[in-house]
């Protein structure tokens, strides 16, 4: 079968002299993310590419400028992106138990015009996609969140969010793997460890995995 022309318009921006940011789109979209992950995997096989990491709808590529120019790499990225992405293997499914007693649960419910029970119900409904791993070790951006739960981030971020906190912001949800600062709304906590420093890779979730939350009493 000949490669199909893709409707994806790709923009390749320089990130200095040895990296580029290839943008496939600007929407939070599972199909775009699938293409980004496939493109990163294809780029990693090239000898002139040192590192390729998928974002939500982009790929950040570090390359060896002694082996390839910006222009030639950008052309190669466009060529690869135009190919029909390989059939995606379904990501592994993780079921994550959550104690829904987060410090922001009541306030979040009030802002959304819901009861805390309804927030919990909505949050546990979808099977989320892990769009990308990053920000801190083991953190996964999960989504899309049900429309009923969409809220901007907290105006004042917390300086310390406990590890295991389950949080929402915008169209996404996530679990803080380590104690870190954070601006998302904390609705619960899990005992599952997401950052596994003695494993390789050290993250429980990988880009493309699927995640389902379910409530537990304690």
């Amino acid at each position, binding site marked *: 079968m000949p490669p199909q022309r893709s409707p994806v318009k790709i923009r390749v921006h320089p990130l200095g002299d040895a990296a580029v940011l290839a943008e496939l789109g600007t929407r*939070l979209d599972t199909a775009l993310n699938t293409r980004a992950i496939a493109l990163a995997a294809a780029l990693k096989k090239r000898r002139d590419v040192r*590192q390729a990491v998928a974002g939500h709808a982009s790929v950040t590529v570090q390359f060896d400028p002694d082996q390839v120019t910006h222009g030639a790499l950008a052309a190669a990225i466009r060529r690869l992106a135009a190919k029909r992405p390989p059939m995606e293997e379904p990501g592994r499914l993780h079921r994550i138990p959550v104690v829904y007693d987060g410090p922001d649960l009541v306030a979040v419910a009030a802002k959304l015009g819901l009861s805390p029970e309804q927030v919990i119900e909505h949050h546990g409904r979808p099977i989320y996609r892990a769009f990308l791993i990053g920000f801190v*070790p083991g953190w996964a951006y999960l989504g899309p969140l049900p429309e009923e739960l969409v809220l901007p981030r907290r105006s004042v971020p917390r300086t310390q969010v406990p590890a295991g906190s389950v949080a929402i912001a915008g169209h996404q949800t996530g679990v803080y793997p380590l104690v870190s600062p954070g601006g998302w709304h904390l609705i619960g906590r899990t005992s599952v460890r997401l950052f596994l420093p003695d494993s390789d890779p050290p993250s429980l979730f990988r880009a493309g995995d699927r995640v389902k939350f379910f409530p537990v009493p304690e």
Partner: protein
Amino acid sequence: MTEALRVVQPGLFTTIQDIGRPQAIAAGVPPGGAMDRFAHSAANMLVGNERGAATLECTLSGPYLVAERDCLIAITGADLDPHVNGASVPGWTGVLLAAGDELTFGRRRTGARAYVAVGGGVAGDRWLGSMSTNLMCGRGGMDGRALISGDVISVHDSTVPLIAGRTMSEHLRPRYEERTLHAIAGPHFTRLQPESRQALFEATYAVSHDSNRMGYRLEGARLDAPGDELLSFGLVAGVVQLPSGGQPILLMADHQTAGGYPIVATVASASMPIAAQLAPGDELRFTETSIEVALALRADQRAALESLTN
């Protein structure tokens, strides 16, 4: 592996660093590695090591070390006024220590980070393919932490002869005092308001005291880049990101792996060693550079390093 240096005093912040673990960014783990790769590579080459061998990165004030056996060292990067047994020793030069010799540092003269390479290469805990210390995860290097008094630094056994006196001439070293960083306009540069575009490449910024190996917060002209929130994307060291407060952040070796702030510029790879030698309070400027010029500077720097292989 052999014990080579005993830590009497660790200095302000001394860690084991190599060239990092770039493949770990897919799991959200910072790439890490030496901040000043030029000085790190040069130090290794001056003692006959592979460029990527681990060294000690000594920040602002150096450690007090005692040689446990004869070893060849080289000190590059910042000039922290190194002494052996009380006598000043040159930087960027292979120096032979005899068992019992004391390596100490005085007052900081230039730069922020000195690198101490030891013949054979410093041996540290390897984590995800690198011996670089990652403090956040408590892994790599010396038990995942900065050196403390009483630590003993081991080196890999080497068959390379210990030849002291190899040196990098001054004109080949980075001009750390220049503090002007070549930078290439970033993917979101066009979001900047006209006055902000001008300010980015003309204003003087100070490295805030809230700066570390993850990144430098820069204090100076406020920049405005209005627009929709961005989806998160992968980051690289050297990018200048602009949070909503308008004060840019220059990401360094232990940077977060993904983020969604606009990237207004990226520092040329040849200027990263200079960036690595900035201390809190130091001033810097960005000068707009084309990719071609950045690549030419990069080639010059590599040629300088390669002159050490002869």
